[in-house]
Protein backbone atom coordinates (compact mmCIF):
# COMPACT_ATOMS: atom_id res chain seq x y z
CA UNK A 1 0.00 0.00 0.00
CA UNK A 2 1.30 3.45 -0.96
CA UNK A 3 0.64 6.26 1.50
CA UNK A 4 0.88 9.89 0.40
CA UNK A 5 0.93 12.97 2.61
CA UNK A 6 0.37 16.57 1.57
CA UNK A 7 0.67 20.09 3.04
CA UNK A 8 1.10 20.18 6.84
CA UNK A 9 0.63 16.40 7.10
CA UNK A 10 3.68 15.94 4.89
CA UNK A 11 5.64 18.54 6.87
CA UNK A 12 4.79 17.04 10.27
CA UNK A 13 5.66 13.52 9.18
CA UNK A 14 8.79 14.70 7.39
CA UNK A 15 7.91 12.68 4.28
CA UNK A 16 5.52 12.83 1.35
CA UNK A 17 5.29 9.13 0.59
CA UNK A 18 5.88 5.69 2.09
CA UNK A 19 5.13 2.06 1.31
CA UNK A 20 3.60 -0.17 3.97
CA UNK A 21 2.66 -3.84 4.24
CA UNK A 22 -0.90 -3.75 5.48
CA UNK A 23 -2.08 -6.41 7.92
CA UNK A 24 -4.99 -8.59 6.86
CA UNK A 25 -7.21 -6.99 9.57
CA UNK A 26 -6.87 -3.59 7.91
CA UNK A 27 -10.25 -3.24 6.19
CA UNK A 28 -10.94 0.51 6.21
CA UNK A 29 -9.21 3.88 6.31
CA UNK A 30 -10.01 4.01 10.03
CA UNK A 31 -8.19 0.68 10.52
CA UNK A 32 -5.20 2.07 8.61
CA UNK A 33 -5.14 5.19 10.80
CA UNK A 34 -5.28 3.04 13.99
CA UNK A 35 -2.39 0.99 12.67
CA UNK A 36 -0.30 4.10 11.90
CA UNK A 37 -1.07 5.74 15.24
CA UNK A 38 0.03 2.57 17.08
CA UNK A 39 3.29 2.61 15.12
CA UNK A 40 4.69 6.01 16.06
CA UNK A 41 3.96 9.12 18.15
CA UNK A 42 4.30 11.40 15.09
CA UNK A 43 1.31 9.68 13.48
CA UNK A 44 -0.62 9.91 16.76
CA UNK A 45 -0.15 13.66 16.64
CA UNK A 46 -1.13 14.03 12.99
CA UNK A 47 -4.24 11.87 13.34
CA UNK A 48 -5.24 13.18 16.81
CA UNK A 49 -8.13 15.16 15.27
CA UNK A 50 -9.36 13.40 12.12
CA UNK A 51 -11.84 16.23 11.43
CA UNK A 52 -8.81 18.30 10.34
CA UNK A 53 -7.95 15.70 7.68
CA UNK A 54 -9.30 14.44 4.40
CA UNK A 55 -8.50 11.15 2.70
CA UNK A 56 -8.42 9.91 -0.89
CA UNK A 57 -8.17 6.27 -1.95
CA UNK A 58 -6.84 5.74 -5.46
CA UNK A 59 -7.26 9.47 -6.09
CA UNK A 60 -10.94 9.62 -5.14
CA UNK A 61 -12.17 11.57 -2.13
CA UNK A 62 -13.64 9.03 0.34
CA UNK A 63 -14.83 8.93 3.96
CA UNK A 64 -12.83 7.37 6.79
CA UNK A 65 -14.95 4.22 6.76
CA UNK A 66 -14.12 3.51 3.09
CA UNK A 67 -12.41 0.16 2.38
CA UNK A 68 -8.68 -0.08 1.66
CA UNK A 69 -6.82 -2.88 -0.13
CA UNK A 70 -3.19 -3.97 -0.29
CA UNK A 71 -2.39 -2.25 -3.60
CA UNK A 72 -4.25 1.00 -2.94
CA UNK A 73 -2.82 4.50 -3.02
CA UNK A 74 -4.08 6.26 0.12
CA UNK A 75 -3.51 9.99 0.58
CA UNK A 76 -3.99 12.08 3.73
CA UNK A 77 -4.19 15.86 3.56
CA UNK A 78 -5.93 18.89 5.07
CA UNK A 79 -9.05 20.36 3.43
CA UNK A 80 -8.01 21.74 0.05
CA UNK A 81 -7.38 25.47 -0.53
CA UNK A 82 -6.78 25.88 -4.25
CA UNK A 83 -8.57 28.09 -6.75
Amino acid at each position, binding site marked *: MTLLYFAWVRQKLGKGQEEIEPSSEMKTVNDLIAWLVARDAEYAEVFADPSRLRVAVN*QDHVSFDAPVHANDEVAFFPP*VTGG
Partner: protein
Amino acid sequence: MIRVQSEDFDVGAEIAALHGDGVGAVASFTGAVRGDAGLTLEHYPGMTEREIARHVEEARKRWPLLGVTIVHRIGRLEPGANIVLVAVASAHRDPAFRACEFLMDYLKTKAPFWKREGGEWVEAKASDEDAAKRWSQL
Protein backbone atom coordinates in the same frame (compact mmCIF):
# COMPACT_ATOMS: atom_id res chain seq x y z
CA MET B 1 -8.45 21.77 -21.76
CA ILE B 2 -7.00 21.32 -18.28
CA ARG B 3 -3.48 22.36 -17.31
CA VAL B 4 -1.62 22.40 -14.01
CA GLN B 5 1.62 24.32 -14.43
CA SER B 6 4.13 26.56 -12.71
CA GLU B 7 4.28 29.02 -15.65
CA ASP B 8 1.96 32.00 -15.98
CA PHE B 9 -0.86 31.90 -18.53
CA ASP B 10 -2.19 34.36 -21.12
CA VAL B 11 -5.81 35.12 -20.22
CA GLY B 12 -6.59 36.85 -23.52
CA ALA B 13 -5.16 34.00 -25.61
CA GLU B 14 -7.04 31.36 -23.60
CA ILE B 15 -10.36 33.20 -23.95
CA ALA B 16 -9.76 33.89 -27.65
CA ALA B 17 -9.06 30.19 -28.22
CA LEU B 18 -12.54 29.35 -26.86
CA HIS B 19 -14.32 31.58 -29.35
CA GLY B 20 -15.45 29.81 -32.50
CA ASP B 21 -18.46 28.30 -34.27
CA GLY B 22 -21.64 28.90 -32.34
CA VAL B 23 -19.94 30.50 -29.34
CA GLY B 24 -21.84 33.60 -28.27
CA ALA B 25 -20.57 33.84 -24.70
CA VAL B 26 -17.39 33.19 -22.75
CA ALA B 27 -17.52 33.61 -18.97
CA SER B 28 -14.20 33.59 -17.21
CA PHE B 29 -12.69 33.81 -13.78
CA THR B 30 -9.11 34.70 -12.97
CA GLY B 31 -7.81 34.42 -9.42
CA ALA B 32 -4.73 36.34 -8.31
CA VAL B 33 -2.47 36.43 -5.25
CA ARG B 34 -3.64 39.06 -2.75
CA GLY B 35 -1.46 40.52 -0.01
CA ASP B 36 2.28 41.10 0.19
CA ALA B 37 3.59 37.66 1.11
CA GLY B 38 2.99 35.71 -2.07
CA LEU B 39 1.89 32.09 -2.02
CA THR B 40 3.31 28.64 -2.51
CA LEU B 41 0.96 26.10 -4.03
CA GLU B 42 1.34 22.36 -3.52
CA HIS B 43 -0.83 19.80 -5.29
CA TYR B 44 -1.46 16.06 -5.60
CA PRO B 45 -0.24 15.22 -9.11
CA GLY B 46 -2.59 12.91 -10.94
CA MET B 47 -5.53 13.33 -8.59
CA THR B 48 -5.69 17.05 -9.34
CA GLU B 49 -6.13 16.57 -13.09
CA ARG B 50 -8.54 13.68 -12.49
CA GLU B 51 -10.70 15.65 -10.04
CA ILE B 52 -10.84 18.68 -12.35
CA ALA B 53 -11.66 16.50 -15.38
CA ARG B 54 -14.50 14.86 -13.45
CA HIS B 55 -16.04 18.24 -12.65
CA VAL B 56 -15.63 19.49 -16.21
CA GLU B 57 -17.46 16.37 -17.38
CA GLU B 58 -20.21 17.02 -14.81
CA ALA B 59 -20.50 20.65 -15.98
CA ARG B 60 -20.82 19.47 -19.58
CA LYS B 61 -23.69 17.19 -18.52
CA ARG B 62 -25.50 20.01 -16.76
CA TRP B 63 -25.11 22.79 -19.33
CA PRO B 64 -24.72 22.97 -23.14
CA LEU B 65 -21.07 24.01 -23.23
CA LEU B 66 -18.89 24.55 -26.29
CA GLY B 67 -15.53 24.65 -24.54
CA VAL B 68 -13.87 24.73 -21.12
CA THR B 69 -10.36 25.84 -20.23
CA ILE B 70 -8.94 25.48 -16.73
CA VAL B 71 -5.38 26.46 -15.89
CA HIS B 72 -4.12 26.27 -12.30
CA ARG B 73 -0.64 27.29 -11.27
CA ILE B 74 1.55 25.56 -8.69
CA GLY B 75 4.80 26.44 -6.92
CA ARG B 76 5.90 29.89 -5.79
CA LEU B 77 3.60 32.76 -6.80
CA GLU B 78 4.44 36.40 -6.15
CA PRO B 79 1.92 39.05 -5.00
CA GLY B 80 -0.46 39.94 -7.83
CA ALA B 81 0.41 36.82 -9.84
CA ASN B 82 -2.29 34.82 -11.59
CA ILE B 83 -3.30 31.63 -9.73
CA VAL B 84 -6.15 30.17 -11.71
CA LEU B 85 -8.19 30.66 -14.86
CA VAL B 86 -11.57 29.07 -15.52
CA ALA B 87 -13.11 30.01 -18.86
CA VAL B 88 -16.30 28.52 -20.27
CA ALA B 89 -17.78 28.96 -23.75
CA SER B 90 -21.43 28.49 -24.67
CA ALA B 91 -24.00 29.83 -27.12
CA HIS B 92 -25.54 32.00 -24.40
CA ARG B 93 -24.44 33.73 -21.25
CA ASP B 94 -26.44 31.83 -18.65
CA PRO B 95 -24.84 28.38 -19.11
CA ALA B 96 -21.41 30.00 -19.40
CA PHE B 97 -21.81 31.89 -16.11
CA ARG B 98 -23.36 28.93 -14.28
CA ALA B 99 -20.68 26.45 -15.37
CA CYS B 100 -17.86 28.90 -14.61
CA GLU B 101 -19.10 29.40 -11.05
CA PHE B 102 -19.76 25.69 -10.60
CA LEU B 103 -16.21 24.84 -11.66
CA MET B 104 -14.69 27.52 -9.42
CA ASP B 105 -16.71 26.32 -6.42
CA TYR B 106 -15.50 22.76 -6.97
CA LEU B 107 -11.90 23.80 -7.61
CA LYS B 108 -12.01 25.54 -4.23
CA THR B 109 -13.40 22.55 -2.34
CA LYS B 110 -12.37 19.37 -4.19
CA ALA B 111 -9.26 19.87 -6.30
CA PRO B 112 -6.25 18.82 -4.20
CA PHE B 113 -4.26 22.07 -4.02
CA TRP B 114 -2.91 23.60 -0.82
CA LYS B 115 -1.78 27.18 -0.38
CA ARG B 116 0.98 28.25 1.97
CA GLU B 117 1.32 31.96 2.77
CA GLY B 118 4.28 33.27 4.77
CA GLY B 119 5.14 29.87 6.22
CA GLU B 120 1.53 29.09 7.26
CA TRP B 121 -0.83 26.71 5.50
CA VAL B 122 -3.96 28.60 4.49
CA GLU B 123 -7.09 27.31 6.29
CA ALA B 124 -10.02 26.11 4.20
CA LYS B 125 -13.08 28.37 4.44
CA ALA B 126 -16.52 27.13 5.47
CA SER B 127 -17.96 29.68 3.02
CA ASP B 128 -16.32 27.78 0.15
CA GLU B 129 -17.91 24.53 1.34
CA ASP B 130 -21.27 26.27 1.52
CA ALA B 131 -20.82 27.69 -2.00
CA ALA B 132 -20.12 24.23 -3.41
CA LYS B 133 -23.20 22.81 -1.69
CA ARG B 134 -25.40 25.07 -3.83
CA TRP B 135 -24.84 22.68 -6.72
CA SER B 136 -25.66 19.62 -4.54
CA GLN B 137 -23.26 16.73 -4.34
CA LEU B 138 -22.06 14.88 -7.43
